[in-house]
């Protein structure tokens, strides 16, 4: 049974379920068994939710037999990053040892919505402790251990949605929900060779998600295709009375033709890329040029990285105030996280407010540029996955540059990362497409077009086929 199901997209699995070729119980059992067999090798899972998942799958199976289908996600298993609250005795650890037994008595809105739409929660997925908010700079920054890459056990999955990327890439779940403050969906998507979508700010309710930075946090899907990401976003988006930052309009997924037929590359954005990332990106550009005009553009010289860091660190100082004051940082796993929260307690209010004023200027200037293009493109990350014991270059700590990430996250712009090749070490690289606010359909259409022609997203580790 598992042979038929692993590495199938959500759309493919949904068709099998709706045709009654497989049942929700069969699908759920297959993925639960695979999770339990493989997850310890990858450190990608905190909790397998077997009992709850099977109970739900039986209900969904009865509905299929009655001809009642809730939607495309009916009977589809998924994993949730362990910063999303789950009730019914399922722990929510935030990746931190001191919280590993902690249970909430409510579900995050995104978890509730997925349940209502028939998706089956099969696992809470490993993550970097406190979503990387303490300033980690190497993979062993979670009580679950360093999360491993589907393509090599010596390589890191990326983070902070480490388990989300790894579990999708190893075929343990058809899709996962991750989060991004700055890089945490796109990084694991890049490293693990899967597709990740960082939606526009406010697309998905954050009620029940651990806050790191209220100005920057977004929840979004990781899956095996851009098309799947669109299907999932449609189900998890929409207003929520419990989160007043959630947009009032629900996202409707629609593959649309590009309105301008133009993409742009920010000058200098590939200067720091490793040679093979650089080469794979140029191959992608060559492919995209068959459909789009592609301009090289300049952007205004503004303090993108500094503004993103200051906003993120100020807000995280508040988000983790109690944690910090109680001295709980010393219980974290990564040595650098044990002292991480203290320096940021000194940020002055006037500097934070100045950063928000600069944000307004950035929004105005970048919007003027992006009006002319369907999207901006760049390598998702400057390198493929780093080694499991190595430090990585990080823009959040100032040791690396990520201009697209800084701009995109400060302004809440959507971006999708799709696999676009491999290095000579057989590690994936990624292409990111970033759009204007609320232009998910546009960037997903571009990604769909790319994935219809290229097959990188259909490559999976040979040793992981059942």
């Amino acid at each position, binding site marked *: 049974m598992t042979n038929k199901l692993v590495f199938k997209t959500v759309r493919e699995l949904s068709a099998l379920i709706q045709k009654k070729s497989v049942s929700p119980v069969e699908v759920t059992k297959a993925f639960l068994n695979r999770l339990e067999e493989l997850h310890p090798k990858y450190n990608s899972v905190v909790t397998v939710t077997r009992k709850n998942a099977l109970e739900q799958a039986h209900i969904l199976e009865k509905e299929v037999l009655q001809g009642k289908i809730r939607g495309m996600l009916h009977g589809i298993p998924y994993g949730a990053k362990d910063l999303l609250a789950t009730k019914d005795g399922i722990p929510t650890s935030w990746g931190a040892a001191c919280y590993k037994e902690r249970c909430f008595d409510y579900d995050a809105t995104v978890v509730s919505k997925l349940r209502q739409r028939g998706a089956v929660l099969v696992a809470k997925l490993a993550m970097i402790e406190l979503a990387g908010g303490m*300033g980690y700079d190497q993979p062993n920054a979670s009580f679950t251990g360093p999360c491993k890459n589907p393509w090599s056990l010596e390589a890191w999955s990326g983070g902070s949605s480490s388990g989300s990327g790894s579990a999708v890439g190893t075929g343990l779940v058809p899709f996962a929900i991750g989060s991004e403050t700055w890089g945490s969906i796109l990084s694991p998507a890049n490293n693990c060779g899967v597709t990740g979508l960082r939606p*526009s*700010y*406010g697309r998905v309710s954050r009620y029940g998600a651990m806050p790191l930075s*209220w*100005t920057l946090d977004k929840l979004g899907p990781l899956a095996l295709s851009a098309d799947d990401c669109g299907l999932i976003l449609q189900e998890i988006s929409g207003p929520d009375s419990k989160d007043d*930052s959630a*947009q009032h309009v629900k996202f409707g997924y629609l593959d649309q033709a590009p309105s301008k037929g133009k993409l742009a590359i920010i000058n200098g954005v590939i200067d720091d890329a490793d040679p093979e990332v650089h080469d794979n990106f140029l191959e992608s550009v060559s492919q995209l040029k068959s459909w789009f005009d592609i301009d090289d553009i300049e952007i205004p010289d*503004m*303090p993108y*990285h*500094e*503004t993103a*860091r*200051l906003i993120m*660190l100020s807000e995280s100082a508040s988000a983790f105030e109690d944690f*910090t004051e109680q*001295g709980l*940082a*010393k219980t974290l796993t990564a040595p*650098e996280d*044990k*002292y*991480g929260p*203290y*320096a*940021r*307690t*000194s*940020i*002055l209010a006037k*500097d934070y*407010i*100045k*950063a*928000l*004023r*600069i*944000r*307004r*200027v950035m*929004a*105005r200037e970048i*919007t003027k540029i992006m009006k002319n293009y369907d999207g901006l493109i760049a390598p998702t990350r400057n390198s493929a996955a780093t080694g499991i014991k190595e430090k990585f270059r990080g823009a959040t*700590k*100032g040791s690396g540059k990520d201009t697209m990430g800084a701009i995109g996250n400060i*302004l*809440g712009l959507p971006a999708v990362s799709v696999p676009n090749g491999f290095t000579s070490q057989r590690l994936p690289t990624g292409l990111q497409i970033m759009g204007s*606010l609320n232009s998910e359909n546009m960037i997903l259409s571009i990604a769909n077009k790319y994935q219809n022609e290229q097959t990188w997203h259909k490559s999976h580790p040979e040793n992981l086929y059942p």
Partner: protein
Amino acid sequence: MASEDNYFVDLITHSYSQYLNNDQFASVKRSLAQLIEDASTIRNFPITHEDAPTPLFSNIAEIPPKQSDRN
């Protein structure tokens, strides 16, 4: 800048030294140096009185052009 650095080091020492050993404290000082550098960059970036903060925790919708650009 040096006096601001010292002020914050004193503040952190006063509030959190119980949670930090000497090596960790040295790392905190390095993080602080990075933060002060970022803050300096932010402070030196020129903006005008028309550039109000964006509303807290909300979407960047179409930001209207500055009044001075419209005139």
